[in-house]
C-alpha cells in the first residue's frame, strides 16, 4: 500500500471538530438512520456469540445468558420507583424496556382477570411484540427460545424483582415471528 493510499484512508478519520471535556453530547452522532450497518453488525455479532456459547457450554449457555439478563434488569430498574402493585410495576417495566422491547398484558377471552390463578400458581400473560432478541435471531437464522431469549427472561425477572422486591419467574410459552407469549409467574 502506498503512502498516498494510507494518507487518504487516514483522511477519513480526521475532522475540524473540537471536543471539550465539559461537552455533554445532546444528539446521537451519526443520525440513527445512518446506524443501520452498525445495528446489523451488532445483531450478527450477538448471534455468533450466542451460537458459540451454545457450542462450548451446551445447556449451561442458558444459565449464563439468564444471569447476564437478570443483572441487566436489576441494573436498569434500580433507578425506577419501587412499588408492590404488580400492574403498576409492569407499567414501569414497559417504560424501562421502551425502544428494545414492547409488551402488552394479555388474557385469553375466557378469563375474567389479567392476574390468573391456576393450579396453585398466580401468573400474568405477557405478549411481547417488538423484541430486539427476536430480530437478532431472525437476522441470523437462529431458532427462538434458546439462550438469547433467556437474556430477556432474566432481564424481565431482574427488573420485576428490583421494582417489587418480590421473586418472579418468566416462562416462555410460545415464540412466533411477530409476537411471543410469556407467563410471568408471581411468587
Amino acid at each position, binding site marked *: 500500500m502506498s503512502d498516498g493510499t494510507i494518507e487518504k484512508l487516514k483522511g477519513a478519520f480526521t475532522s475540524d471538530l473540537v471536543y471539550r471535556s465539559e461537552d455533554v453530547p445532546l444528539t446521537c452522532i451519526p443520525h440513527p438512520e445512518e446506524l443501520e450497518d452498525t445495528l446489523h453488525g451488532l445483531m450478527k455479532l450477538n448471534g455468533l456469540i450466542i451460537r458459540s456459547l451454545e457450542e462450548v457450554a451446551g445447556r449451561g449457555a442458558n444459565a449464563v445468558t439468564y444471569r447476564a439478563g437478570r443483572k441487566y434488569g436489576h441494573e436498569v430498574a434500580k433507578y425506577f420507583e419501587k412499588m408492590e402493585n404488580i400492574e403498576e410495576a409492569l407499567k414501569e417495566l414497559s417504560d424501562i424496556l421502551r425502544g428494545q422491547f414492547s409488551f402488552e398484558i394479555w388474557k385469553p377471552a375466557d378469563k375474567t382477570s389479567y392476574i390468573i390463578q391456576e393450579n396453585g400458581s398466580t401468573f400474568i400473560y405477557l405478549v411481547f411484540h417488538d423484541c430486539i432478541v427476536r430480530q437478532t435471531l431472525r437476522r441470523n437464522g437462529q431458532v427462538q427460545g434458546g439462550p438469547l431469549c433467556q437474556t430477556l427472561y432474566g432481564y424481565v425477572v431482574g427488573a420485576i424483582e428490583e421494582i417489587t422486591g418480590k421473586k418472579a419467574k418468566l416462562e416462555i410459552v410460545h415464540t412466533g415471528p*411477530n409476537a411471543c407469549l410469556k407467563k410471568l409467574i408471581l411468587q
Partner: protein
Amino acid sequence: MIEIRVDENSCNGCGLCVKDCPMHVYELRESLSVPVHPENCMGCLSCHEICPAQALEHKGVYPSKRHYIDIRVCEMLNRVI
C-alpha cells in the same frame, strides 16, 4: 379483535396451525382448518409462517418492528424478481 380468514381453496387440512397455536384458535373440521376461537389470537403469526399452503390471513395484527430486514439485500432481490 384479530380477524382470521382461511382460504378454503388453498387449505389442505394438514393441521399444522392447529398443533402450533398455543391458544387453540383453530380446529380441523371436515379436513379444513377453522378459526373457532379468533378472540384468543395474540397475533404471533406462527400459523401464518408454518402454513405450507399460505392459506391464512390475519386482519388487525400489530406488526412488530423488523430492523433485521437488510434493505440492500431486499433491493437486490427486487431487481432479480
